[in-house]
């Protein structure tokens, strides 16, 4: 009797979820449609399909410069965030120590904080220090938010990590560095890859923090915002579509990497 009702419930939940997914992708679809018209203004249904605006956008030197700035910003953020967050995650989930519970909550605070206000706070702080804003200060600003996120993502992997593995290696005479390189790092690899993915992509797409802290350097989201409030240009949908597809591709590759690492990890474990 539970079962017949169960099937109806499941169908309902599936339908609802798929409907919400469609809702989530309507903006991306609209951007894609608007980017593939040859006319200057967007009219739906599209009269003349074409990729002219894609060509024009990518031929622009300015756009290349934006990609470069955003890329190096995200790359530096990722490298620094992953190193600090790896240790942060071990402290978060691996060791029992006095003050851990308080530490866990402190780490969460920058995530539970309006980003516009955080960006402005950093602007005031850099100004009080007399720093000139550039993408270097933006790296610092992004880290304030991304290190905590990255710590959380890696922590989830650390929770499922068995400390006995490390102890066994110590018992067999491994040095601290050997244990870290041969045991801790490989076991945590899937978490580290996910953490790096989150760091890179969140930095790449961030707007509120860059807006106030990047000074004269312009990132892609900042440029798009300036363009979209200035009036319509089809370059915006083109770059928006590229961002969506790019993020999708990176997530897919990252997901495959995590799956491969997990598989590698489990075969190594069963081979022992």
């Amino acid at each position, binding site marked *: 009797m539970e079962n017949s009702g169960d099937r109806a419930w499941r169908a309902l939940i599936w339908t609802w979820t798929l409907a919400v997914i469609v809702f989530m992708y309507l903006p991306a679809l609209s951007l894609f449609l608007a980017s593939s018209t040859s006319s200057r203004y967007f009219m739906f249904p599209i009269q003349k399909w074409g990729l002219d605006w894609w060509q024009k956008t990518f031929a622009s030197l300015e756009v290349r410069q934006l990609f470069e700035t955003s890329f190096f910003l995200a790359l530096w953020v990722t490298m620094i965030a992953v190193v*600090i967050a790896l240790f*942060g995650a071990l*402290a978060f989930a691996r060791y029992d*120590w006095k003050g851990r519970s308080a530490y866990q909550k402190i780490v969460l605070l920058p995530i539970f904080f309006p980003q516009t206000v955080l960006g402005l706070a950093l602007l005031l702080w850099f100004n009080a220090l007399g720093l000139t804003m550039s993408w270097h200060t933006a790296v610092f600003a992004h*880290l*304030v938010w991304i290190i905590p996120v990255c710590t959380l993502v890696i922590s989830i992997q650390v929770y499922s990590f068995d400390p006995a593995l490390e102890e066994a290696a110590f018992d067999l005479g491994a040095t601290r560095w050997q244990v870290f390189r041969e045991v801790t790092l490989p076991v945590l690899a899937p978490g580290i890859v996910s953490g790096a993915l989150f760091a890179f992509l969140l930095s790449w797409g961030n707007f509120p923090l860059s807006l106030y802290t990047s000074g004269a350097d312009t990132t892609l989201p900042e440029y798009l915002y300036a363009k979209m409030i200035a009036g319509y240009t089809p370059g915006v949908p083109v770059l928006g579509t590229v961002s*969506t597809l790019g993020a999708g591709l990176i997530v897919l590759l990252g997901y495959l990497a995590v799956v491969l690492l997990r598989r590698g990890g489990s075969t190594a474990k069963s081979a022992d």
Partner: protein
Amino acid sequence: MSTLAKLFPPGARQALPVLLFLLCGFVAPLLAVIAYSFVPPRTFSLWQPWTLENYVEIFNSSSYITFLWSLGLAAATVIILALICYPIAFGLARVFGRWATLITLLFTLPLFVSENVRIYGWILFFIKNGVLLGSLKSMFGWELESALFTVGLTLLGMVYVYLPFMLFPMTLGVSMVPQQTREAAFDLGATRWQVFKEVDLPLAMPGIIIGFLLTFVLAVGAIVESKVLGGQRIIPITHDIEIAFTYAQNWPLGAALSVLLMLVVGALVLLVLRRFDLDSILGRR
């Protein structure tokens, strides 16, 4: 072991880089904001006599309206998202099985595209001759008014942007409910509604509350939605703060408004987080 090792056990040592970084990247900037809120209006240096002028100006102005709009819209966003997300969270934890990963990825992906770009996508969807109205016109010959630049659409934008922040903590919460407990309740003759009310909801509460808190706090800071989708029909508090910092060139006033917002958000976060054991939510064994 030396006293140094006792003072700094491995956990504390590994927490040190994060804590130091947050000290100069999070605590110090917030102190800077507080300090700036006490310097005379329209000045840019900290080294001068402090005053309460900025706060007096705020309490004599109509800023409370923007505060109320921000809090009200954030509360509405939380309620709508709770209703939208619960069935999906339940599905991710219990129904979707091997599809759960793919569905999670689909909900994560939009997070990586800048918020303002996605909001712009909604403009193209709703604008006159856009995806929605253009389709209706060509298919049925209907010519409707665009829904753009209304409070309702501001809310839609916020619901859309903050959906993942409600969904993921909620899913963690729902996954915490042991399947055996639910089955036991069903075996004892509980109805679906009773199981939901007496078993699912209370046991999933930590995750649900974290989702509420995160969504509310982020939504209070929302700005692009009302500026772009809402056509500035209403001004949320963050927009007021931004105006003070940019057009008005009145940093101290902006800082004072930020301090008030931080007080609301900070009190709420500390109050709620204090009661939670994060290990049990994030899955410590």
